[in-house]
């Protein structure tokens, strides 16, 4: 198989315009003859479903949540980037493009990223028109803040609830289309398989989470916007129910998986405190605008009251190591720096796995009121969880799994190698290379949904005869349904002794230890022995109580964890094969003497896209070379 990226020819800045002109259009009267399934209603799915509905397609939208408004996007805190240059501080489409390419450690497609930067300006316009209450200055114009990896202020925000406000904007657009009858909304409905007919994606199999009923849905095209897969690690900043099942089952139907090992570990999260812990809480990166990160210079100071440690005994290590970006160094770099100081024994807090994020200077400079205005809700969250007052003592933070840059492989049109299957938002692999910059996921999700898919899906549909989509009595639907029912029965029939959660926890531990912030050959090989063994045990001795014909949260979780086992293995495999360090993928064997990541552009300037070969054969690793026409690949430096 050859992976066709379908990047348009011509100068970078003109590719998208030219491509939009060349894409085939569906005539307005014909649009209502096409049915499109959109799975997911996060930023990517809700914006796509609403916009496709507006255009006149008949859209079916599926979510496992009880309402589209509850998608995990709701939890994004810090902001969304756009190259508006409202601050007149030197920003431009080109700079946002360059920052994103460089932030991704030169492992993303130039053309996709340039398009993302171009449409970023339209996104903010759209959201404001929807009534998203972004922060404003006294003059009534929009306010901005800075995020990691950038030297300009281009992040738009709504207090610490930007994701919530953007999602509610997209959800309101979706509500408008549901009311208009162009979008049919299915809630509490989990997609459990993709149906492929003659090599093309033509439907899905869905379980009603309340009644357990399995149903078949056919369509002319299927859009997956089902989010990231970081919950493989069990402990993460994701919502508890975020999962990989939709993309994983699509992978098992032939969709290639791009760069599965690229995961983002976010530097500013509240440290783990107990064995019972169910999730990790992010403290938005925006805090690094005003907070200073440090650890004691001396190990023996680590247990002392931080306020008692004098200035000269503190190591503001990010400011020391990366003077030009300081506390706003990108996430992968900041996380690894935190790991290094903790490995040296200079970590703080009970576990020694923590560093300080200190606002004392900011409070002195701006006053407590101003700091409260900017970050009050984050300080409140911190207080609820730790019972500590961060206005008085510095926060303790530590890196945690936060985002997955990898995902289903897509071409420039966001279509997978399976024709008719489109993948948007965090579920695809496309724009962030090996590391995502802050405030860029919201931008990408909305870019994909509002401004890319509405054009590119038309090009695919124009080639499909209206009314030609297969009926749900087609054998492929029957087979897929049987597959789903088979998995459910197997899980329920194991009747073993161990809970789903205990397996998930153990798998997460293996992944964190061997495929987390730092990886090496021996560890990855070890993980590749441990995971299959644990998976074996899972299928024999998992205990899933309850029935299939009922709301059954243990069963839901079991199906997701079953998929994590397989995905975890692929992630380790990918990490093992990528014998270089880049962005969030840090292989200990490949580093500079100062501990910075060492890329190998000669051998690894490519996307690795894995193709499933069946349960008993290893997957095949395909390669899509990354061609840089515009920027020069350099060693990424934030010094």
């Amino acid at each position, binding site marked *: 198989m050859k992976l066709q990226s379908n990047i348009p020819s011509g100068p970078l800045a003109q590719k998208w315009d030219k491509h939009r002109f060349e894409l085939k259009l569906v005539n307005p009267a014909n649009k209502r003859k096409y049915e499109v399934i959109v799975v997911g209603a996060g930023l990517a799915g809700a*914006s796509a479903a*609403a916009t496709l509905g*507006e255009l006149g397609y008949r859209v079916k939208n599926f979510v496992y949540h*009880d*309402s589209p*408004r*509850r998608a*995990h996007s*709701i*939890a994004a805190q810090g902001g969304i980037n756009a190259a*508006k240059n409202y601050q007149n501080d030197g920003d431009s489409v080109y700079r946002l493009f360059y920052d994103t390419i460089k932030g991704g450690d030169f492992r993303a497609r130039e053309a996709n990223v340039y398009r993302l930067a171009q449409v970023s300006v339209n996104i903010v*316009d*759209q*959201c*404001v*028109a*929807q*009534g998203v*209450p*972004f922060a*404003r200055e006294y003059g*009534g*114009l*929009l306010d901005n803040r800075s995020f990691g990896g950038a030297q300009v202020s281009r992040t738009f925000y*709504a207090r610490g*609830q930007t994701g*919530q406000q953007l999602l509610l904007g997209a*959800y*309101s*657009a979706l*509500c*408008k289309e*549901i*009311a208009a009858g162009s979008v049919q909304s299915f*809630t509490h409905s989990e997609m459990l398989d993709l149906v492929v007919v003659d090599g093309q994606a033509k439907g899905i199999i869905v379980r009603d989470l*309340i009644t357990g009923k399995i149903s078949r849905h056919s369509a002319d095209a299927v859009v997956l916007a089902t989010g990231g897969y970081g919950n493989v690690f069990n402990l993460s900043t994701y*919502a*508890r*129910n975020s999962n990989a099942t939709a993309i994983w089952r699509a992978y098992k139907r032939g969709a290639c998986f791009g760069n599965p090992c690229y995961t983002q570990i976010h530097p500013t999260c509240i440290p783990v405190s*107990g064995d*019972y*812990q*169910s999730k990790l*809480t992010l403290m938005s990166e925006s805090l690094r605008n005003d907070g200073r990160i440090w650890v004691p210079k001396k190990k023996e100071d680590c247990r002392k009251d931080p306020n008692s440690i004098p200035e000269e005994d503190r190591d503001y290590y990010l400011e020391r190591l990366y003077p030009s970006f300081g506390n706003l160094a990108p996430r992968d770099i900041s996380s690894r720096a935190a790991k290094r100081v903790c490995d040296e024994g200079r970590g703080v807090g009970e576990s020694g796995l923590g560093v300080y994020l200190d606002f004392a200077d900011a409070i002195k400079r701006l006053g407590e009121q101003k700091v409260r205005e900017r970050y009050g809700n984050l300080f409140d*969250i911190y207080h*609820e*969880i730790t019972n500590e007052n961060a206005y008085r003592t510095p926060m303790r933070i530590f890196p945690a799994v936060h985002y997955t840059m990898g995902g289903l492989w897509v071409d420039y049109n966001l279509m997978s190698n399976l024709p008719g299957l489109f993948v948007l938002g965090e579920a695809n692999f496309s724009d962030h290379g090996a590391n995502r910059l802050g405030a860029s996921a919201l931008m990408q999700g909305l870019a994909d949904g*509002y*401004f890319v898919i*509405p054009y590119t899906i038309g090009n695919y549909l124009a080639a499909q005869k209206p009314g030609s989509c297969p009926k749900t009595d087609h054998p492929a639907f029957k087979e897929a349904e049987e597959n789903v029912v088979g998995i459910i029965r197997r899980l329920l029939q194991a009747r073993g*002794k161990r*809970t789903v*959660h205990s397996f998930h926890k153990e798998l997460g531990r293996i992944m964190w230890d061997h495929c987390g912030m730092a990886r090496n050959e021996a560890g990855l090989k070890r993980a590749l022995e441990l995971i299959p063994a644990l998976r074996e045990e899972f299928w024999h001795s998992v*205990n899933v*109580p*309850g029935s299939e014909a*009922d*709301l059954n*949260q*243990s069963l839901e979780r079991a199906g997701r964890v079953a998929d994590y086992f397989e995905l975890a293995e692929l992630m380790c495999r990918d990490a093992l094969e990528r014998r270089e360090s880049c962005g969030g993928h840090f292989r200990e064997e490949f580093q500079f003497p100062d501990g910075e990541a060492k890329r190998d552009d000669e051998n690894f300037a490519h996307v690795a896209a894995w193709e499933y070969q069946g349960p008993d054969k290893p997957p095949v690793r395909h390669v899509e070379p990354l061609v840089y026409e515009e920027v020069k690949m350099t060693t990424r430096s934030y010094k």
Partner: protein
Amino acid sequence: MKVRLKIWRQPNAAAPGRFETYDTPDLNPNMSFLEMLDVVNEDLTARGQEPVAFDHDCREGICGTCSLVINGKPHGPHRGVATCQTYMRSFKDGDTIVVEPFRARPFPVIKDLIVSRKAFDKIMQAGGFISVRTGAAPDANSLPVPKPAADEAMDAAACIGCGACVAACKNASAMLFVSAKVSQFALLPQGQPERERRVLRMVQAMDEAGFGACTVTGSCEAVCPKNISLDFIARLNREYARALLKGG
């Protein structure tokens, strides 16, 4: 610490429910309330029983999924937080804690502690939006919004749609929820063109869904995890009267 739980168990909407009593294993006071339920569920599962079904997702107070009435209070003992942000240190060793689903006619129980809040989506679909087509928006800074208006709109927009306001109200009124959305848009220039139409339709949808009337007892504000103010209900009433006068 250990506590005794009296938890509402109900197999489905049609079947009757009842309280079951569970004694928890040893707990860490720094656990969240939902982590405590996780522990109880692990224990039940290990003993071959069906775990308690409860709603949750983000576990940081933003998605609005978690519900629960704890000792008679929606979202538990503390003001301004959701159930998922409630910690066991708020209880004492040996306490008995009663855990029920949100109870309101428009929110039927689905199973155990999970209720359906579809009625909220219906209200939103009736008018909780600004009709702007993708791609049709003017430049974001072409429409300045005075900071106080933007800030107040944000105060209203912070609603997470959990439904605690309804569960706390003796009439199961959804006024606080509706007022938050109506106020957000009424405060912003973008919301003006559909201002009257929106409020009339949302209020009508609210009535049709079976939510009761508001008698301004303030119990909704007291349990709101986002501290949405009762002032917005006053604003909703004004908006409604104004729309009626203008004839929508």
